[in-house]
């Protein structure tokens, strides 16, 4: 079969390179696609709205209901509120190697959260509920850092995540 690139590209070496470039793009996107689907790794992409100015009137994000809850299947749900300048509750304790789903709402502006050295991260956008699921293989003290500029106090917005050995349980403190 004649090379379809021939009409626009006279040099055989260059045609070869164009095919390699296209193959690179397709293989890379294909690999990422394959792993995303096969291992079910997707970026946090929850589409769920909430009125950020009335979080206290919702059941889920009312102050008394924040923190760690154990679900029927043994996984955990952590409900957090992000508000200038902290994550509430400010200290979270979870067991290692356990599926944890964070559900986070902003009470004011745009925030982000990242636990360095893990893939626990999501943007927190007023008007929407963020949801991110992960598990922490290593025990220790971690930081939840706000990683999106949210105002002049942004630097100070961080809180504590403690990952304890699985046998130790791990309750919200």
């Amino acid at each position, binding site marked *: 079969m004649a090379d379809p690139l021939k009409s*626009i*590209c*006279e*040099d055989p070496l*260059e045609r070869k*390179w*164009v095919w*390699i*470039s296209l193959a*690179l*793009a397709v293989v*890379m*996107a294909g690999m*990422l*696609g394959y*792993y*995303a689907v096969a291992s079910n*790794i*997707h*970026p*946090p*992409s929850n*589409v*769920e*709205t*909430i*009125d*950020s*100015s009335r979080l206290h009137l919702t059941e889920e994000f009312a102050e008394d209901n924040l923190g760690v809850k154990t679900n029927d299947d043994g996984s955990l749900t952590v409900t957090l509120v992000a508000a200038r300048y902290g994550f509430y509750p400010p200290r979270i304790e979870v067991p290692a190697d356990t599926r944890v789903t964070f559900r986070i709402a902003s009470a*004011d*502006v*745009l925030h*982000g959260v*990242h636990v*360095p*050295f893990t*893939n626990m*991260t*999501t*943007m927190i*956008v*007023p*008007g*929407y*509920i*963020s*949801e991110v699921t992960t598990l922490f293989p290593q025990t220790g*003290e971690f*930081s939840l*850092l706000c*990683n*999106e*500029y*949210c*105002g*002049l*106090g*942004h*630097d100070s917005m*961080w809180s504590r995540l403690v990952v304890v050995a699985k046998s130790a349980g791990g309750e919200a403190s």
Partner: protein
Amino acid sequence: MSQSRAAGLSLASMWVGFIAFAAAALLGLYQVIERIDLIPGLKSPALYFGSVSTHGVLMGFVLTTFLVMGYGYYTATTSLRQELWNKPLAWFGFWLCVIGVLLAAGPLLTGNASVLYTFYPPLKAHPAFYIGATLLVVGSWVWCLEMVMMMTTWKKAHPGETVPLAMYGTTANAILWFITSLGVASEVLFQLIPWSLGLIETVDVGLARTLFSWTLHAIVYFWLFPAYIALYTLLPRAAGGRLFSDHMGRVAFIMLLVFSVPIGFHHLYMDPFQAAGWKFLHMTGTFMVAVPTLITGFTIIASLEIAGRLRGGKGWFGWIGTLPWGNPMVTAAVLAMLMLTFGGFGGMINASYAMNAMIHNTQWVTGHFHLIFAGTTVIMYFAIAYYLWPKMTGRQLYSTGLALKQLWLWFIGMLILTLPWHQLGLAGQPRRISSTPYDESFVQAWLPAESAMIAGGGILFISALMLVYNLFRTHGNGQAETNPEVEYAEPVHAIVRMPRLMNSFGFWCLLVLVYMIASYGYPIAQFFLLDTHGTVPWSI
């Protein structure tokens, strides 16, 4: 010929860009020092975030827009050998941009627009900031119109002829910029301006971020385009050779136009409010947009090899040494390609749907875009300036030696600044922080990389001053430039037949429209279908 050039307009435009650049470089130096609490007296989040916002606006919006416009006007008039389509209108566009910048400068410099150049609602800036930014964009649309009209009228006057590659690329960029700026224009006109004036109470932050993402990726190609145009059409001749392929340059420009706009969701990977399938779709396009850059890398290196061999270079690598390293265009191009390679590796991680989670919004990202934009793109802006200043002023460049030193310093400074930033990102440091009040273990681990960052910032600031000084002194240089012509590179194979699709844009615009509707149609429409809640303005 000289009277048909737009030298005055181009010079004025590029000077505004480089003055903004020098001011922004000074702010950059302040920021690297303030950021790690080196001098306690300097510590001020208000000053820092005002500075970061100004630095971003000056570098990302002012330097780029004015340089693109100035270079575009000069390219159009010299490559087509044709008068500006409408000179008074072009000057009107220029002044509109200047007024926009001055209007935005007020709130920026007084700390009333410290919302970063990405706007970030629901943080609210003074309305003058949004209105100024809008005027800058509207003024640049005048340039878009001029470029399209220049190409159209030239084609009418030269039926059957091929539009010169430099102009084909410039027009591609004009169309690209018009399409991509519609996203941020809608955000500002329909959301931020009425909201900051109190005409509407709330904005939907999800919609605002989606609209901004429409602009946010392709804008970097708007910035990058002049660099690519110089690489394809000025560099091969400056190096003493020929362009390896005119056709592949067109293919690259067309691919950038088609693929760079409908892929903005890789900036929203970590956001809620857009479902994973849409992000996946945009991810695939993000990898496609790497293809024109890979093609460009091949064509440019091949063109340099031709030049090196013509100058007597032998063997696999011998041609590198025989390149005319005393020519700023050649040196800048090689350094630009090196930085593009480093930056490209990092970019692959950012573009990766899942891996991005490790580095999202960390200092890694700042490192990445400084390498590609402040590195690759801006060093080519310098090369363009060194090449065009003598043509535009009729005076020889004040000092070629100073120019070469400046380019090398910029390259070294940029590596010292950005490679440690990648490391800081992997070590967990967020971007956009003005101090580090975190765990001691973090702060200690970050210190060596942060010290390097200060050294890099210092070198870059010195380099920036050298550029401005050299250009300024060129105006007063007693020695007249002997070669006022812009010498565009000839391709190895003369153009015999140009397919119609590679000499026009109608079909490609239609393709972008279809691709945009497919990738942004529902994601934008959903905000009008969902039961959403807007957000009131917040002060910083």
